[in-house]
């Protein structure tokens, strides 16, 4: 096991896959010579050369269009959209083209490509550079959606996404790029669609994603001191969704909380909440509670940003408030 940062794990995964498969190519704005605006792709140009690691014009539609066309004719492109907020300027490619063409053509084409993008708040970049948009992608049939919370998952899941025969949007969380963690040595590939129990508790189940995972783990520690024993489930992938694990962990505690960074309405938490309710209603001791950012654009300055994104304190407080904490009968 080597210790890598989350950003180093991005490079490690891409490099691993480019070494084994010459069909893997990588394009995006400032990704090559500069190594990416988050320095998450440093060294790739040097190792793989300008034919495979390509700086593009500022043309997000062309970037995704090019990836789509290339992926249907024998390549396995990785396209970077610098900030997930910019998915809005090329949304047609995700929502209408890449996702639907296989189905519309009755399976004539496949689009094995990965769209990597820096997601999430915490950098005080304001409303157009800080959004958490996993739910945008989850909402579109035909797109797989992955959002890792630690360096090992970045490496394993990104490698899996690159090998996947279908299009994957891979959300890297900006505020985690500096996070360090153990990453398995050698060729390492994980599996899409498996959630992970990171902490096993018996009273409540916290379901989280990306940057909300470390916060939920910290919240769980604090709650433990109050005698509330929390399971923390890291979804890791929204599509495919690991419902088996979600159901198992729901039934175990009967009290579920989702912690999501996106604004309130139609977030992934709403989907998970409604799925759990529909499938585990009689196992629930209380309604599934969603802890989310309010339904607002994000403010820029630190004090305001911190006030709206679910914090460890808010997770703890909302859980405390709503857990009618008596032993289960």
């Amino acid at each position: 096991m080597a210790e890598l940062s989350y950003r180093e794990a991005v490079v490690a995964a891409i490099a691993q896959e480019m070494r084994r498969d010459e069909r893997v190519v990588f394009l995006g704005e400032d990704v090559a010579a500069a190594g990416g605006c988050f320095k998450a792709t440093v060294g790739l140009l040097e190792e793989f050369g300008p034919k495979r690691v390509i700086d593009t014009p500022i043309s997000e539609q062309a970037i995704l269009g090019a990836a789509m066309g290339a992926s249907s004719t024998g390549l396995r492109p990785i396209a970077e959209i610098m900030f997930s907020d910019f998915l809005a300027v090329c949304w047609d490619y995700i929502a209408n083209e890449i996702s639907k063409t296989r189905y519309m053509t009755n399976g004539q084409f496949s689009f094995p490509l990965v769209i990597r993008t820096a997601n999430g708040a915490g950098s005080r970049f304001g409303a157009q550079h800080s959004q958490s948009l996993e739910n945008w992608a989850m909402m579109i049939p035909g797109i797989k959606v992955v959002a890792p919370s630690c360096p090992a998952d970045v490496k394993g899941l990104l490698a899996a996404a690159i090998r996947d025969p279908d299009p994957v949007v891979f959300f890297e969380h900006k505020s985690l790029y500096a996070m360090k963690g153990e990453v398995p040595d050698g060729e390492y590939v994980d599996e899409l669609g498996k959630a992970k129990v990171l902490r096993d508790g018996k009273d409540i189940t916290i379901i989280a994603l990306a940057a909300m995972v470390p916060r939920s783990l910290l919240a769980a520690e604090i709650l433990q001191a109050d005698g509330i024993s929390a399971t923390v489930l890291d979804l890791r992938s929204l599509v495919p969704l690991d419902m088996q694990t979600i159901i198992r962990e729901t039934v175990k505690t009967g009290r579920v909380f989702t912690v999501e960074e996106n604004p309130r309405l139609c977030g992934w938490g709403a989907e998970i909440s409604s799925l759990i309710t529909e499938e585990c209603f009689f196992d629930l001791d209380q309604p599934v509670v969603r802890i989310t950012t309010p339904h607002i654009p994000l403010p820029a300055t630190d004090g305001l940003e911190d006030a709206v994104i679910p914090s460890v304190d808010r997770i703890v407080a909302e859980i405390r408030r709503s857990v009618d904490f008596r032993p289960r009968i």
Partner: protein
Amino acid sequence: MSMVKTKQTTKAGARKAAKAADDIPIAIRLALFRSQVEARYCEKRAYDLFLQNLVKGTSHLALGQEAVSAGVAMALEKDDYTYPTFRGHHHVLARGASMTSVLGELMGRECGCLSGKGGSMHLSSVEHGVMASCAILGASLPIAVGTAWSSQYRGTSQVTVAFFGDGTANIGAFHEALNMAAVWKLPVIFVCENNLYGEYTVTTKVTAVEHPAADRASAYGLERIIIDGNDADVVYRTMQAAVAKARAGEGPSMIECMTYRQSGHSRADPAHYRPPGELDEWKKKDPVVIYRKRLLDLGVKEATLKQIEDEAMQKVNLATEEAKASPVPPVELAFKDVWSNGGIQWRN
């Protein structure tokens, strides 16, 4: 499609000769005629099938634009790629897809090239190099850039053609695609079918320049090319040059073909917005009519042309019968092929 594709396949020597002499051998000309006649008959049949209420959804005919599809396809090799538009029946037929697969798709039958799942705006046929047909205007231009990039990367000599309409030249994706193709010197040819209208609106009224494509070529360092899109020979010759340039690694071209759609925009459109006489003027320049006359002038026998027409009519009749006889797709088809494993599962 396979990754390794290194040799360039070639068609009959006849075509090479044609280019050298700057004239077109009669065999090619007959093939161009056949392609146009087939597209024409098939479009007319599609219209009849509308009237019989056998065509589902909408449908957009390219009546009058058949010289473009014929000339373009004739300049391509089998393994080249084309991106049709939503008005793409002729684009698809010209690459060799069967009339049954086209009419069947319009009628929503199992024999349709998409088995009814895609509908008339999305005709595709991977085995004929006919790629994703987008019904979002302009969306296919960047995708075509991607296949051309793929060919360049894989070291093949494949060329990609993307069709688009005059109205579509005002959408953002056009700009991004043209620039990227030019910067990367990709083997892609952007073919504008300028039929004067975008739906019910005269394109020059909503466009800052007279020629929505050609007048913007220089913005991407490309040559300004405007041709008679109703003359299949002109289209073919222009395309040959563009294809040669692309295969030589000298980058993209954009060709604006002046043509006219003789039908309404879609099945529901009676095209009342046309100024009086305009349609008649263009009918005088009907690509099938002028091409037929040219062949006669060149000494081709009436009987030869008649035979091609008869064969085309037989083909369209047969295709109509096949499509009518084809069952509607089984309902299970709706629940297939979101993913490469053939399924639609998003959960375990």
